[in-house]
């Protein structure tokens, strides 16, 4: 589904990603872990198509298409979803209205008819129950005055509504207490199936207690330096990132 080959990316001339290789297949959950400044969020941003990031080398194929050739909204249309680390606020725009616009724009991209109000409400009710989000939150302005937990729950709700092929969770656990993490993770787990995939980007292992990965990759200094099964996350938690630094020093 997603195939990243030798991806290099800069921001303001500074090299951040220095040759990433990653294959994700339908039904899989991958976790990318790494210390601050290793390039985790940059990878998420480059995949979603944020401006200011310049890809200097490498290829990314997503659902049979050259991802890097697509605009951010086309990537969304193809089924790529990014749950933001810092979801933005848009005062005066109701969350429901925003999501309805998003759902119908994506449908338009796929050549499907727009959902009418009744069909949209039905879908919304169904997904609200699934990710445990309250109606009152959705009638408020998008993310305005939401708590950290509410913002992240809203991200997962949008994911439920858009039903992406690949969801990238960028530090979704940051700033959340353990109860909030559990709620958010439950939502993500309910949305998993054999046809979609999840890429979890995180600093800490704790989120992976709830969203259990098939593979864990350690990102360090712009490269994936270690990959392994979920147990690798425990090893990192136990030893800290220093052991990665030490190992890489030895190799260097």
């Amino acid at each position, binding site marked *: 589904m997603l195939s990243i080959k030798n991806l290099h990316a800069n921001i303001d001339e500074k090299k951040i990603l220095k040759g990433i290789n990653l294959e994700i297949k339908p039904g899989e959950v991958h976790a990318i872990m790494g210390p601050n400044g290793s390039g985790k969020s940059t990878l998420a941003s480059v995949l979603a198509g944020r401006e200011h990031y310049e890809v200097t080398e490498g290829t990314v194929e997503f659902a049979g298409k050259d991802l890097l050739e697509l605009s951010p909204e086309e990537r969304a249309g193809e089924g790529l979803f990014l749950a933001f680390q810092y979801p933005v606020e848009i005062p*005066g725009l109701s969350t429901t209205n925003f999501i309805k616009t998003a759902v119908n*724009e994506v449908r338009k991209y796929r050549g499907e008819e727009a959902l009418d109000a009744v069909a949209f409400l039905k879908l919304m009710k169904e997904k609200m129950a699934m990710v445990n989000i309250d109606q009152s939150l959705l009638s408020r302005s998008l993310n305005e005055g939401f708590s950290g937990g509410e913002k992240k729950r809203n991200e997962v709700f949008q994911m439920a509504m858009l039903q992406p092929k690949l969801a990238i969770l960028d530090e979704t656990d940051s700033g959340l207490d353990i109860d909030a993490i559990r709620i958010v993770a439950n939502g993500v787990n309910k949305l998993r199936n054999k046809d979609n995939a999840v890429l979890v980007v995180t600093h800490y292992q704790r989120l992976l207690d709830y969203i259990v990965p098939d593979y864990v990759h350690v990102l360090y200094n712009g490269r994936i330096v270690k990959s392994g099964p979920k147990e690798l996350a425990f090893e990192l938690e136990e030893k800290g990132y220093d052991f990665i630094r030490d190992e890489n020093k030895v190799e260097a």
Partner: protein
Amino acid sequence: MNNELSAIEKTVLSDYKYGFVTEIEADEAPPGLNEDTIRFISAKKNEPEWMLEWRLKAYKHWLKMEEPTWANIKYDKINYQDIIYYSAPKQKKKVNSLDEIDPELRKTFERLGISLDEQKRLSGVAIDAVIDSVSIGTTFKEQLAELGIIFCSISEAIQEHPELVKKYIGSVVPITDNYFSALNSAVFSDGSFCYIPKGVRCPMELSTYFRINAEGTGQFERTLLIADEGSYVSYLEGCTAPIRDENQLHAAVVELIAMENAEIKYSTVQNWYPGDKDGVGGIYNFVTKRGICQGAHSKISWTQVETGSSITWKYPSVILKGDYSVGEFYSVAVTNNHQQADTGTKMMHLGKNTRSRIVSKGISAGVSNNSYRGLVHVGKNAANARNFSQCDSLLLGDKCGAHTFPYIEVKNNTGVVEHEATTSKIGEDQIFYCNQRGIDTETAVALIINGFAKEVMNQLPMEFAVEAQKLLAISLEGSVG
């Protein structure tokens, strides 16, 4: 991909879809302004002597006045001798009913989305259609007359209801008030008149649609609206003009009078031609709008959506004379490309326990300048006056300007005046967030600005809110992304 800034800065003029010209023969005065011009206009309208005298008095006063320069706008000096002050589409014969209106004119209004056919018209909206210097027709007049409501052109009101016009014209905006209102008083050629009798709740929206068509003309309309005791009326005006590379002057005066327990809701969707992306052409919009809450417990509410004109100079105001009267001003002003807007309100608290509320939302894009200018005055007898003002500015790109000039004068120490102001930019983070959800940049900008302006848009009558939302998006098309 490192072009985000230049993309935000990029400004492209959207198509101004009202920019067409109607080919119709016009009956015009020669360009220039002198006493003869005024006599010509007055004679064309077959006005009584007192009206002509009033006009001439205004003209003499105007000659002694200087064009104001305090507003935060720049423009080349207007040559008042180049302007045509009277231009009326030639109609074959006198029109006795709406069915007899020249088909070409009827088509013009159809293209603007205004049907003069009562059957096809949105039920609940009566229209007075003004083209250049004259009103060409008013719909639903008979139905309104059954309730005692007078809704007609001001020219007709001068003929049919001289006592009302004589009593109220210039009573809120005196001829000496300011340079542009004095000019208007001298040369006004048409406009709407409305009287709602005691205790009547006007059952439909009243609306005037102003259209400038002829080249080289100025439009000087005059609107006078009186809501007698305990009555209610909601009034809406809209305006458009053809695309021309000259600047045309529009100097209107609107006067509102609300008696005891009366309520007037006055909404404007202003979409005069704004000029092209290099700032060539466009309407100079110098307008004086003022209402008086004459009686106790009366209320006047101004709502304006200002998207057009190359220059807007406009301060819809309320004189809160009656005790417990309420004044409101809700405004969205959008400037793009080279547009300049200096707009706001004056709330003059004179009576006791008067309240006012100001919500101003300025949106600037391109290299435009958008200023809020407002005065809250609490007079020495205005015990317990309350005002709340909120002025928010939204910037698109970094070459435009937003300015706020709030003036406050409080002469009674029981008054409470609050002012809040914010300035924000549409962030690339907000746009990217929308993009990531599959929403393209144009749509994202529309969502963000409509969110920003929502508090004001909510004040518009339902029939027009949707149109106004679209208009906001169109005005800013191409300004981001």
